[in-house]
């Protein structure tokens, strides 16, 4: 697996560029990842990213869009507004987590 330098730190990523080590993530890295996909992080974005990070810690997998709505309290509509077109993948990418596995 490749190692890339982002926000002055070396991190492990998969072939698509998603971080593979939970603990290598930081808020600085999140900002740099978001900038790479043209997203400016606002408080609302952070709310989603922090939910994903916390949820992963307890569940061991990345929350789907539906879970971000039902458990995280951020509606699907809002997710699409914050992370246009592909909310679940973009959120996971910025949060330094794998793509969600669930279908719904």
């Amino acid at each position, binding site marked *: 697996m490749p190692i890339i330098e982002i926000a002055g730190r070396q991190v492990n990523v998969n072939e698509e560029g998603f971080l593979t080590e939970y603990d290598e993530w930081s808020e600085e890295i999140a900002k740099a990842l978001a900038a790479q*996909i043209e997203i400016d992080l606002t408080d609302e974005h952070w709310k989603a990213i922090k939910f994903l990070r916390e949820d992963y810690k307890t569940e061991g997998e990345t929350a789907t869009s539906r879970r971000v709505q039902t458990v995280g309290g951020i509606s699907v509509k809002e997710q*699409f507004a914050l992370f246009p077109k*592909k909310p679940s993948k973009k959120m996971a990418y910025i949060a330094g987590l794998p793509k969600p596995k669930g279908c*719904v």
Partner: protein
Amino acid sequence: MTTPSIVPNFGSDNSGRKLAIICSKGNLDMAYPGLILGNAALGEGVEVHFFFTFWGFDMIIKSRMEHLQFSPAGNTAMHLPGGNMHIPQFMAPAPGMTAMATKMLKKSIADLDVPEIPEFLDQIVAAGGHLWACRMSADMNKLDMSDLRDDIEAIISASDFIEMTDGAQLLFI
């Protein structure tokens, strides 16, 4: 060794991709495939249009959409949860069997945190999906917009739907 930055491709390349899904079945089990695939496509940034027709109308009729059912009759692939046991076909039409099978299917689906049909359609609309109702089905059932979910965009003819989904990939379920 550090490789140059790798940024995922979040799909400027699929802009303009369109999917049309024709939902023609009103059994609980056959209502799901179109919604699951359409919802996944929306999450990938695809423009999705659903056309509800014939039995599929039950998914959007306010008085029926909460009560879709599943029957093992005629379905030889239906097994009891967690094994290869199945209900013999001669028993499938027995009283109470449809209610029991419906309850079991609903539980299996809920266990995966997949919503019931009306809530699933709410989520699809929130994700930008478009819902259309079939003109002929409405006329046959003597129904109008007031009988349907409020987020149905219009009752349209088959040719309107075909025209609207020009260039789309199409699924008939």
